[in-house]
């Protein structure tokens, strides 16, 4: 656009409230045709404070038409349209004060100030975006590396597992052929069999531990245990903190050795995700008590191999689970996995563990409340990665289950910036991360003055 600047802005002659782009339709002293073409009126009826056109186009500068709009130039800031009902309503809407020309409202021209502030904000934003975007590139690279590693691990393990599987099969065949029904031997070996059963149980226990230790810190915590609602003693559908703690013998967390004392409390009810998902504990299942020395030995070997297999599987599942998450188009959100971020407010400590769960704990003691477990990305269609949804949290008293929406904005740091509960039991967390920073557009940050007068 080429415009000649004469130092001070000059009102280009056009009826009040008309944007430059529509100036051509308002020609002084020529009949005016409503922009919808519905009728033609004499020019003195434009802005005469009476609505003649159905589309409101004859009254761009008065409040006469219910559906009209008023254009303010806002030199120094951003031009905008406001509904005509805001013309002379005593409230300053346009920073250039042009909307209040006859209401007695005392408006000050704040466009320059607003423009300056906006530019500052934009500048700051641009800086953040720029740095954030750089950080994002690192994140993407790291995620890619990590993913490759994990992928190869999975492949390796799948190979190992295959070998093991084969060994187990061979042994099982050997065992089966060796099996001869010898009744007296059965009695003798019952006791020894018990030992195998214990070992099987240990295998299951180890698997359960791995599975429960969600954040892989080597400890199973109360909240980790709470995720298994089937362990609920009073069958009210939720495993409360107290109940969980009870199961853990009063401890906040247990390591592998102390878990042994917890296991008997939970093993009958515990649903392994592995067994549920794959129903493949088959190598541990034998219906008959084995008998005969050789058979017994073979069975022992099979069980040992089985234990190995299960460990492989468990690790594999964790990795596969991780690989199954949608960490963004470039895996830029991978780094959030198995991390937790906290914000302390007046009353509560909020904890966001991305792709896992959100929780709230009173600052001065009291039980933790689950505000939702990872659900899905739920941003708008054009960018679903702007919002995360966590749901199925602890039920509200006579209400729905708690849920949380996490709103992601571009920032240099990964941090929870605010939490709120806009509606009962529906939480909103604002979260900044470089992972959502967009590539900075080549925006021109110079003033808008020249855009339009």
């Amino acid at each position, binding site marked *: 656009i080429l415009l000649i600047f004469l130092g001070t802005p000059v009102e280009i002659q056009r009826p009040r409230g008309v944007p430059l782009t529509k100036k051509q339709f308002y020609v002084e002293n020529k009949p005016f045709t409503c922009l919808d073409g519905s009728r033609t009126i004499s020019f003195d009826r434009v802005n005469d404070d009476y609505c003649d056109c159905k589309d409101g186009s004859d009254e761009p500068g008065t409040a006469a038409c219910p559906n009209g709009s008023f254009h303010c130039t806002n030199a120094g800031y951003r031009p905008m349209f406001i509904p005509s009902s*805001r013309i002379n309503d005593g*409230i300053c809407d346009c920073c250039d004060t042009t909307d209040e020309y006859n209401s007695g409202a005392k408006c000050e021209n704040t466009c320059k100030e607003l423009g300056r502030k906006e530019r500052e904000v934009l500048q700051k934003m641009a800086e953040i975006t720029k740095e954030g975007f750089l950080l994002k590139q690192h994140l993407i690279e790291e995620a890619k590396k990590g993913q490759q590693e994990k992928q190869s691990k999975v492949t390796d393990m799948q190979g190992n597992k295959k070998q093991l599987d084969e060994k187990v099969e061979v042994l099982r065949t050997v065992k089966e052929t060796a099996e001869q029904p010898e009744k007296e031997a059965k009695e003798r070996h019952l006791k020894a069999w018990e030992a195998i059963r214990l070992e099987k149980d240990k295998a299951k226990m180890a698997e359960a531990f791995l599975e429960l230790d969600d954040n892989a810190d080597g400890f199973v915590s109360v909240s980790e245990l709470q995720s298994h609602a089937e362990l609920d003693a009073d069958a009210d559908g939720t495993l409360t903190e107290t109940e969980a703690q009870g199961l853990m013998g009063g401890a906040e967390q247990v390591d592998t050795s102390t878990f042994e004392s917890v296991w008997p409390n939970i093993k009958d009810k515990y649903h392994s995700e592995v067994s549920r998902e794959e129903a493949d504990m088959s190598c541990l299942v034998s219906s008959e008590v084995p008998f005969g020395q050789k058979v017994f030995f073979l069975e022992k070997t099979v069980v040992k191999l089985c234990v190995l297999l299960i460990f492989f599987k468990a690790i594999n599942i964790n990795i596969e689970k991780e690989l199954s998450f949608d960490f963004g188009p470039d895996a830029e959100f991978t780094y959030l996995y198995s991390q937790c971020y906290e914000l302390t407010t007046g009353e509560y400590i909020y904890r966001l563990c991305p792709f896992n769960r959100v929780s709230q704990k009173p600052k001065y003691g009291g039980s933790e409340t689950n505000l939702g477990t990872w659900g899905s990305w739920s941003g708008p269609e054009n960018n679903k990665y702007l919002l995360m949804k966590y749901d199925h949290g602890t039920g509200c008293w006579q209400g729905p289950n708690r849920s949380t929406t996490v709103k992601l904005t571009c920032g240099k740091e990964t941090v929870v910036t605010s939490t709120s509960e806009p509606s009962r039991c529906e939480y909103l967390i604002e979260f900044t991360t470089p992972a959502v920073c967009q590539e900075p557009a080549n925006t021109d940050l110079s003033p808008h003055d020249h855009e339009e007068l």
Partner: protein
Amino acid sequence: MVSLREVCGIIIFRWVPLIVLLCVSARAVDRSNFKTCEQSAFCKRQRELKPGRSPYRALLDTLELSDSRITLQLINDNNKVRLLLELYRLQGNMTRVKINELKPLKPRYEVPDVLISDPITETLSVVSQDENSLVLSLGGKDQRLIVSAQPFRLDIVEGPQVLVSLNSRGLLAFEHLRARKDTSISHKISSTVGSMWDSLKKEEDKPGMWEETFKSHTDSKPNGPSSISLDFSLPGVEHVYGIPEHADTLKLKNTDGSDPYRLYNLDVFQYELHNPMALYGAVPVLISHSTDRTMGIFWLNAAETWVDISSNTAGKMMFGKILDFVQVSSEAPQTDVRWISESGIIDVFIMLGPKPADVFTQYASLTGTQSFPPLTALAYHQCRWNYNDQEDVKSVDQGFDEHDIPYDFIWLDIEHADGKRYFTWDPSKFPQPKEMLQGLMDKRRKLVAIVDPHIRVDNGYKIHNEILSKNFYVKNKDGGDYEGWCWPGNSGYPDFTNPEMRAWWASKFAYEQYEGSMENQYVWNDMNEPSVFNGPEVTMHKDALHGGWEHRDVHNLYGLYVQKATADGLVERSGGVERPFVLTRAFFAGSQRYGAVWTGDNAAEWGHLKISIPMCLSLGLAGISFCGADVGGFFKHPSAELLVRWYQAGAYQPFFRAHAHIDTPRREPWLFGPENTALIREAIRQRYALLPYWYQLFYNAHRTGYPVVRPLWVEYPNDVATFSIEDEYLIGKDLLVHPVTDEGATAVTAYLPGKGEVWYDVHTFQKHDGEQSLYIPVTMSSIPVFQRGGSIICRKDRVRRSSSCMENDPYTLYAALNSQGSAEGELYIDDFHTFNFEKAKQFVHRHLSFSANTLSSRNLAPDSQFSTASWIEKIVIIGGSQPSSATLKNAESALEFEFDSTLAVLTLRKPGVNAAADWTVILR
């Protein structure tokens, strides 16, 4: 905004299991929390008394006649206790009947502060007297008051017609105050003075006379039995209305075989529809209507009251002197009404009509008219329990602008206060209340913050400490400060019946006293039944003490006093300049003088939307015009369809506020998708365009006492078809509204009244004849509204973001012609917020009329003065013919016009005259 359920929540979380048992109830009202007549000892005793020959006899030789009244004594022949009967003829065609004990053991409570002044009496003269009767002239058209001595009864007759009979069924029963009998002494008496036993026997104690237990609560009743009852027969009457508040039909039902209608202000959690249970407020006014006459009975008693309605046949109870006067068809229908109250005296006003408008005038002359609200209070209110903090308030305010939806008020419920200490602000959520209020003021909007009457017992709380030091709390039966559970936990209840306490309370609204408050902040009084979570029936113990009176005597009056003291405070803080706006949940006769009421904690159900119409119509008949229901329903989550329909209905009810329970999902108008946002926006805009009409109606309600919204029969008293209609109503007399209140509705059937009248659809200008049921197909955007042919309605079609922004905007006149081609209407304008209209006669009141092709504006108040910037921008004449010219006479200038010949709508372009001016437009 309350409920036992929440209470329970709080109790469970905060105060451990002590009271948990109280609150197991789930979704609907727990009826067992509230008494039936059978469970209310006095009601049971009284109701056991069946119609028959009255034991009361008038002692005609005790007659004393003065200019203003006559008195005579009544004696109960069973127990020889004497009563004093006072009869007054009141100016404006009313009769007052008072009955008290001649010599009560101690004074009985007479309700103060409800009548606006001592009613003006007129001379009662004795027309004739014989040994068993006394005939008094009530003036007028041979109206007589006949006192029959034995059995005692009163009949008001006009010519050959009995208008109303009192005690004709012999149900006058007056439990005199008595000393508590020591059972051993009475035993002695019975054995020694045998002959007296017969009369004493009648005095035998019955259960519940000296103590009554309901659930875990015991009422100590130190004064013993004190209830009163009187029956009224209304020959020729089949329709009676009023006695709000009940979630029931407009036309009162026969209560034979069910409980009577109960009047006892109660905080009822999740109330049920269509039953006579008591709710939050009570107005003991019953209106009877037939094609012949409209009358009213105002039973001035603030104690727990029950009202039985039964249908009867006239003539059954006619005998004695009365037959000299009247002709009775035994076939004629009759409605019998019986009032029963727990204490106080019989003080009843019989408003003799004869027209509906006369009854409204009569009742208004006794208890006053609707307060004239500031215009802004008639606009749209956005409420929720709770807007969480200042940021939330700001973003909701912005939301309205972003979606271009007008609103005037945003409301803050109990969570805004610091630990439910009213008059304070939560320091973390509302650290800068003035900044928030200023932000709203910059947008010409307002805020309401709740102030409930229960006061947190907390020696760190200034309000509590002052009340304590001034000894202003209600006392328990033992004289200590009464304490009960409410939102803040343990709470005291200021004695609002004490005028000194009320003056102190009012002073607390001064800006320097109520920190953080500003002039665009108004008040909401909730929980003023009063609600006491752990009290009997969730209210105060009846043996609690208000000075010398028991809570039993004053219960239904408590809420009125709370609102009065609050409204006084708002007036005072402005130096007497500004009109107040206070919303109350509890109310009594006279509450109309202090502000608005709403129908309490309803639910997001279609039935609740439907019932909001008869509930507010009943309140209007009983003087309280400024009524509304929570739009959307308080409890539960409305579907988008229900919410939209509720906005559409609410936009045409006097008090228009959306409200929601804290546990419900957010429901600001833009949260249900763009289509529903547009529908809600349109409904709210229709409200704003019609604000001039609402304002004018409220002005007239304030002057005359006529209800703002009216059942159809009020304007069409001879059309029997209108008598039971409650799904449509009139706003003023010129707009008929039939909101859509059914889920999935594709049509409604509206009855358009008035033989020879015409009605115009306000949206399409389509014309329909009166006296027909009209089938109207509807879509989601339909709000069936019709303008009466013969009316002129002024609107402001430039809808802006708040009513204040529209104050100086021009008017458009909609003249809908009747079959004679004429129409008339009014326009009222003032400063919209001060008392200057009253104090300084600063207002514009115009009469607009169209006839013989001439439309003119004439001054209705020549001695008033006010200048307005508003002008007449457009005149729409509906149902006329095409003129060849239109001339504005003042300027002798031709007006341009358009004529739509298919709908016969003539639009005059821009007359441009000032709205306060005299002007005439002539069509040729």
